[in-house]
């Protein structure tokens, strides 16, 4: 089990940031991800592994200002 924005999400071996975003249906492109308080760059989502128990924060940036 891991946390995504404070909510439980099931973990499985081989989980990456890219896969997690797909599972959460976070399909908007303007998104910032931090894993255990460390920035995960967008270009590395496929390679960034997520471990069991990790704390993932996603910020979905939206237009307006």
């Amino acid at each position, binding site marked *: 089990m891991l946390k995504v924005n404070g909510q439980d999400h099931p973990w499985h071996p081989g989980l990456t940031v890219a896969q997690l975003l797909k599972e959460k249906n976070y399909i908007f492109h303007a998104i910032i991800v931090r894993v255990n308080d460390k*920035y995960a760059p967008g270009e590395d989502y496929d390679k960034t592994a997520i471990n069991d128990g990790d704390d993932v924060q996603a910020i979905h*940036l939206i237009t307006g*200002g």
Partner: protein
Amino acid sequence: MKILVNEKPQEIATGSMVSDAARLYKNNADLFIRNGFPCGQDVKLEDGDRLVLIKKGEMPKREELEHLLMARHTPGVHERLKSATVGIAGCGGLGSTAAVALARAGIGKLIIADFDVVEPSNLNRQQYFVEHIGQPKVEALKEIILKANPFAEVECHQVRITPANVSQLFNAADVIVEAFDLADQKLMLAEAVQKQMPDKPLVIGNGMAGWGDNNLLKTRQVGRIYICGDEISEAGPGMGLMAPRVGMAACMEANQVLEILLGPDPRIRSFIEQDKQSTLNMNKAKGERC
């Protein structure tokens, strides 16, 4: 005892009243502000008090204007903000309002950056006036800021902010305020700051289109990123932006900057604690809050 009168240290007899200080230092004063709050003349002064004496309607000399402008601040706060530098990335609805609020709060230096000029559709939510249409936003904003607080230092950059110039623009800032309109721009800045200046606090405005629903706007902290807004109301065709809600998000950003620079306000924390205690003890004698 020692007190500060219009920021000048003065020695005054123990037991003196505000009226005594007024007689000695500003005979025609008709507004008295003691430790950040207006008071009557019949209030007894205490050692270490900070007293500001103002004559309403009188234009102060430049050398005494700055502390008169900050007379309603909690004592000690202005000195700390005066030494701070804040970067404002974008001078639209979020940036112009946050910058004016921070300048009024007495931030010493603002670095403002925006490539654009003021056009008519900006005026429904941005701090500009009709006379500014056609002017570079950074120049117009500097003029407005200095009208409110002529002691703020304003560094203007009329440039498009890109990953290539972010650190050059904002490296000297203690905090960066993200104040763009478009999500892609917000993303560009957030990515660049995290890659290039990971320890720099970044305050983002995110989700403030439409009107109403005051209580949806909130602040969320993720690492050194502080997100202000409702995170759901996206501007787009059929979904406009208006001064009140954009202004709320902008002032939440400015307020967050103050908390980053000063730490949480200890007085607010103590009010919260008192409130809890009063509820726990059912202390009717102290009066109940609604």
